[in-house]
């Protein structure tokens, strides 16, 4: 009677759950480490657009007048700007084996560069692309600053300026969270601490960091 229907339903549920769980078993750990600059031909491409942004403020007292303040344990004089550059989005999530393409548009800040900690992935020599992601022919190498009106006359390798968009491409080989850092606006301590002030106490408008999380 109906018992058979129930039995069939129960059997299919059991089957579905078992097969699902079996499929969910984590894949064997890969031996290759980190991120590699070349993608396998079959790797699925994940593309992300990132803008460089900025938070800033000049702390004021209740009367609306600039006041001296404290930033992360450092005394700052009145009228000094508290600022920090950001990546937006600052969290990129991909799966292991993906070919990751990051297009980074420099909006705030006269120039930035980019390196992913522990890897050789960075903006040195990265291609500069236009609005349709086509290479303009320019590369983020040591060169004359096209925005010399606001920044230094010469750019170092890896630096790209306001209005430029660079593209990075790498394959994610190992699961984990990688820190993507703009070194112009970050000072890294001996143990990897990301600091907003350099070793001379000068603010570097940072740390400017984003995280690339590779799911296993």
């Amino acid at each position, binding site marked *: 009677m109906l018992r058979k229907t129930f039995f069939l339903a129960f059997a299919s549920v059991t089957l579905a759950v078992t097969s699902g769980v079996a499929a969910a078993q984590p894949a064997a750990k890969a031996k290759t480490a980190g991120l590699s600059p070349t993608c396998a031909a079959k790797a699925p491409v994940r593309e992300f657009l990132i803008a460089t942004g900025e938070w800033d403020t000049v702390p004021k007292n209740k009367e609306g007048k600039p006041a001296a303040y404290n930033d992360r344990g450092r005394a700052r004089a009145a009228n000094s700007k508290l600022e920090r550059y950001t990546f937006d989005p600052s969290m990129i999530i991909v799966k292991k084996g993906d070919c990751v393409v990051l297009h980074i548009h420099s909006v705030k800040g006269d120039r930035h560069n980019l390196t992913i900690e522990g890897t050789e992935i960075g903006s040195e020599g990265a291609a500069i692309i236009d609005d349709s992601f086509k290479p303009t022919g320019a590369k983020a190498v040591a060169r004359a600053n096209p925005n010399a009106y606001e920044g230094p006359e010469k750019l170092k390798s890896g630096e790209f300026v306001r209005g430029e968009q660079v593209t990075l491409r790498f394959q994610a080989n190992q699961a984990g969270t990688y820190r993507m850092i703009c070194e112009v606006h970050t000072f890294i301590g001996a143990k990897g601490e990301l600091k907003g002030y350099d070793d001379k106490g000068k603010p570097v408008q940072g740390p400017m960091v984003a995280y690339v999380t590779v799911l*296993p």
Partner: protein
Amino acid sequence: MQRDGGRTEVARALVARGAQDPAQLRRIAAVASAVAVLSLTVVLMGWMLAQVAEHPGVPRELGELPHWFAGEPAMRGARERVPAPATAEHGHQAGVAIAAIKPGTPAARTAEKTDAAEGDYTEFRGGQVEIALKEYEMVPNKIRVKPGAVTFVLRNEGRFAHNFHVEGPGVEAHAEKFSPGRTVRLEVTLQEGDYKISCPLSNHDQRGMHGTLVVTSKLAGT
């Protein structure tokens, strides 16, 4: 399929019993389809649970972060990495050869190092100069060496990729960018004089990744 099977069987059983009431048949069919929908829902839920188990992207309880989430995978990888296969790369000018070497090799077997011989200078006599690169310094950063062919053995002990640039009388050479945990070699022929060594990447130089290389035939120990 399973629903049809159930229905046929139920109908057959009813016919065998001599039940002819269409209302009763319809009621039983309704119950059977309800059961089918329910079981389908349960199957879907099972599948969804399996999906969630596969991708625990959002840790649901504090303190139960998946092992891969909070670590420093790249750094660990770099530190424990098996020696990279030796690959020859091209130098940027004549007289410069770059080759990746095995990080495990105690490269300095031939180099005779004399620390604090004179001032803060470190002297290398074997024609091989070992330098560790990290943020943001070179260790050692004051070096004395004899003129002639000099091999720089450069270890990246930092967290970022680095490079090595040497500039002085008649020479301007650099290696290829290399990632943490790797060691590369740079061979240059140097004549007497003062050279500047630095990391040309980003702002590493101005943050302190530079040093002085004095090439002289009069080393303190000789």
